[in-house]
């Protein structure tokens, strides 16, 4: 790969001069950019901002739950806090987190393209997201909503208070950003692969993002029409959910969960893609079972559309439908299990560097598996009847989304930080942050499994005193977790000014993104790459410097 050698061996001054970060300093060059790398950074700032807002809501919740009584917030105030926490974390942080930052930045690089298929559409996606986010901020400033992020009817259409309409409109608009991103990714992956980059040579990160883009495009419109029906009922009174007219409140739940279950796979599939990259890179070894892992992503996307009824086992849904949904929910665990087994087998006889990205990856595997197993428990009908709508469910989804996706996000952030910024971060601090996050996380959420099984329902502001000990443990963990999440803010920003300059391939990894300089030039490659072998062709012929700390 001679083109790769040319890129990798350019002089630092040349790299600096042609870096995409230096292609214009004005506000205009950032806010009117069509460069996928700059758009990824715009997203990185925005999602971090919303993560902070959602995190503040979480802090309020955990502080209030230190005592059984209502002290910090009123009943209504607490309801608004958890509603806001859910809405912001789901739609304005988790869903865009990995795809819109790392997907945007890396997809063209990984497939050897100069940009996404529709660069201007990409910028439009960001503006739509920001507009929706601003509306959400207005909702926050206006006191929030007390509906929960799930907006069940008739509560939301006929009884809820607060800025319900604006919140629903904000989420509706954010959906367009998602759909356009998915469209862009699908067309890019089909039409802009470099010569020689067949489907069998695609990195698994691309396979996951392809699968997630299918869900983006096919599931999000169902959310859109569901929210439209919700608005029609609340604003104009022309609804189809009103039971007194013969409408069915369960219809809302079916429509909502038909989107929202695939939405959770939206939140986890990109993380699974990140994992394949981190593990193969840390082990300097070919992935075990490439095709099983690749097709597992597609299988998760497809089966994920068929399990929504497992949110409705006690809703009044037919027992036969529930049985089918239960079975399929167990089946959807199989492709995820395949991935986990394959990653473990990849480490076997690897040539392993224990670095912060690997620590994050291993943490991910442990927490994702723990969360996934409780998912299996929830899929068991009789068990769900007991723990549905309790803290058991809350713990389960936080294990997957925080223990899983957010951990993967931080792993990706550390792993590709040198590529994105051209700097290395402090490895020791990063390892400490990783461990702090993992300990803090478990302390926060493991007690919640116990709370749930003992009968503590979710969305409870006030609770029976016998649950207090577990709540205190959970809140203490949340404090530690917050410290762990704040640490990278400091050492990563510090590295921008004082960090060692990164070479093109500091990890000694395969992948086209590592053949170009750190940071890449504006159009990614100085020459069109040509691909002649598979994505994990270790050991590398030109290992470069594995020069991390």
């Amino acid at each position, binding site marked *: 790969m001679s083109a790769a050698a040319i890129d990798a061996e350019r002089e630092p001054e040349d790299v600096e001069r042609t870096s995409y970060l230096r292609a214009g300093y004005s506000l205009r060059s950032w806010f009117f950019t069509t460069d996928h790398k700059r758009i990824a950074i715009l997203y990185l700032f925005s999602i971090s901002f919303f993560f902070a807002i959602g995190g503040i809501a979480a802090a309020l919740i955990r502080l209030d739950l230190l005592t059984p009584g209502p002290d910090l917030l009123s009943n209504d105030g607490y309801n608004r806090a958890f509603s806001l926490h859910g809405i912001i974390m789901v739609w304005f942080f988790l869903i865009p987190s990995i795809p819109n930052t790392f997907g945007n930045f890396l997809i063209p690089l990984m497939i050897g393209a100069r940009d996404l298929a529709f660069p201007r559409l990409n910028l439009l996606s960001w503006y739509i997201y920001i507009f929706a986010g601003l509306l959400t901020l207005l909702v926050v400033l206006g006191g929030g909503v007390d509906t929960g992020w799930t907006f069940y009817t*008739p*509560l939301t259409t006929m009884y809820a208070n607060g800025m319900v309409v604006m919140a629903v409109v904000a989420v509706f608009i954010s959906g367009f950003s998602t759909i356009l991103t998915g469209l862009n990714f699908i067309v890019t992956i089909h039409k802009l692969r470099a010569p020689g980059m067949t489907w069998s040579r695609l990195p698994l990160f691309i396979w996951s993002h392809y699968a997630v883009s299918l869900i983006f495009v096919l599931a999000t419109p169902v959310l859109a029409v569901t929210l439209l029906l919700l608005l029609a009922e609340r604003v104009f009174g022309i609804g189809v959910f009103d039971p*007194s007219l013969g409408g069915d409140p369960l219809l809302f739940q079916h429509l909502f969960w038909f989107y929202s279950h695939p939405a959770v796979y939206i939140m986890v599939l990109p993380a699974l893609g990140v994992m394949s990259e981190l593990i193969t890179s840390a082990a300097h070894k070919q992935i075990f079972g490439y095709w099983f892992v690749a097709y597992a992503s597609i299988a998760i996307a497809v089966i994920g559309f068929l399990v929504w009824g497992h949110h409705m086992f006690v809703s009044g849904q037919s027992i036969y439908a529930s049985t089918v949904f239960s079975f399929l929910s167990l089946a959807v665990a199989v492709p995820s*299990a395949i991935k986990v087994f394959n990653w473990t087998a990849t480490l076997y006889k690897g040539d392993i560097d224990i670095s912060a990205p*690997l620590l994050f990856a291993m943490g991910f595997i442990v927490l994702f598996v723990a969360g996934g197993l409780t998912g299996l428990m929830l899929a068991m009908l009789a068990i769900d009847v007991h723990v549905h709508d309790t803290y058991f469910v809350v713990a389960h989804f936080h294990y997957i989304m925080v223990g899983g996706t957010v951990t993967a996000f931080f792993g990706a952030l550390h792993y590709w930080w040198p590529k994105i910024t051209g700097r290395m971060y402090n490895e020791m601090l990063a390892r400490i942050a990783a461990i702090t996050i993992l300990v803090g996380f478990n302390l926060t959420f493991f007690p919640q499994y116990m709370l749930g099984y003992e009968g503590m329902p979710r969305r409870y502001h006030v609770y029976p005193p016998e649950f207090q000990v577990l709540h205190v443990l959970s809140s203490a963990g949340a404090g530690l977790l917050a410290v762990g999440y704040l640490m990278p803010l400091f050492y990563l920003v510090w590295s921008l000014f004082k960090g060692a300059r990164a070479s093109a391939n500091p990890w000694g990894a395969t992948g086209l993104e590592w053949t170009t300089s750190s940071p890449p030039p504006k159009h990614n490659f100085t020459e069109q790459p040509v691909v002649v072998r598979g994505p994990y062709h270790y050991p590398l012929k030109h290992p470069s410097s594995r020069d991390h700390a």
Partner: protein
Amino acid sequence: MIGPFHPIAARASEHARTLDLLFGSFGAMVAVLTLPIFVLLVLFAIRYRTTNDVNREHAESHNLWIELSWSIIPFLLTLGFFVWATSLYFDLRTPPPGAYTINVVAKQWMWKFQHPDGTAEINELHVPANTPVRLVMTSRDVIHSLYFPALRIKQDVLPGRYTEEWFEADRPGTYPLRCAEFCGADHSVMGGQLVVLRPERYANWLEHQGSFGTSATLAGQGERLFRDLGCSGCHGPASAVKAPDLAGVFGRPVGLTDGNVVMADEQYLHDSIMLPNSQVVGGYPAIMPTYGNLIEPEQVNALVAYLKQLDPPEGSPE
């Protein structure tokens, strides 16, 4: 078991004990299947560190049989538990015939219970032990959910519809009942107590409730409503209006105008009163007015209780 830190909620029924067994054994199985992964992860990371000089020869990059076995075998083991859990669930959703029926009406933010003898309770539910108890539930406003942690059961309670849950509690005592579907401001304080009494004590308790409720049974209240609301005007024997005779209607099939046949269960009776033109009896005009705005769910429950105990006409088939 009470105190600042008690391991597990009380178990007040056979189902609760069985469920804990299911949960515990399934948990043990998944732990056994996954602990090796965690151990191997750490082991491999340490053993195959780049600074270690170990044998890295012949590392496979794929193996069909291993892949198939570690996918299929755990799945089959899980299916065993699936069958067990599903069978328990089917039992939960199939109340035994003749179970002692109590009506429940949920509203923001309280629970009302109507016993068949006319006794009404608010937020506290007394039930006899060792007796199948069936709760027929509806909501006056939003969706709620009636959760009994000690029985390990819950069921959503919907407006405009009846849902049900049943149990047989076998440990007398007092247990919490909680709302488990977010229903607005006071969701977290919408709870109360389930009081399980031995059958003799329960009978005693019922007798002493006469002063609070009306003196009529629930069905008796329904009979009075049937007259007062004018139902007998059309459905009575002397009526000039063509309306179906309701004697013995409950539990029998009904032929509708569109050719379908439905079972006349509580939901059917409820809908006939609240949304009468949704399902019209075959051969009758769709002229019954709706009582949707006029009566409360508690009154519908009374009417349904009355209709349920109407005997079929003399000489009609069982």
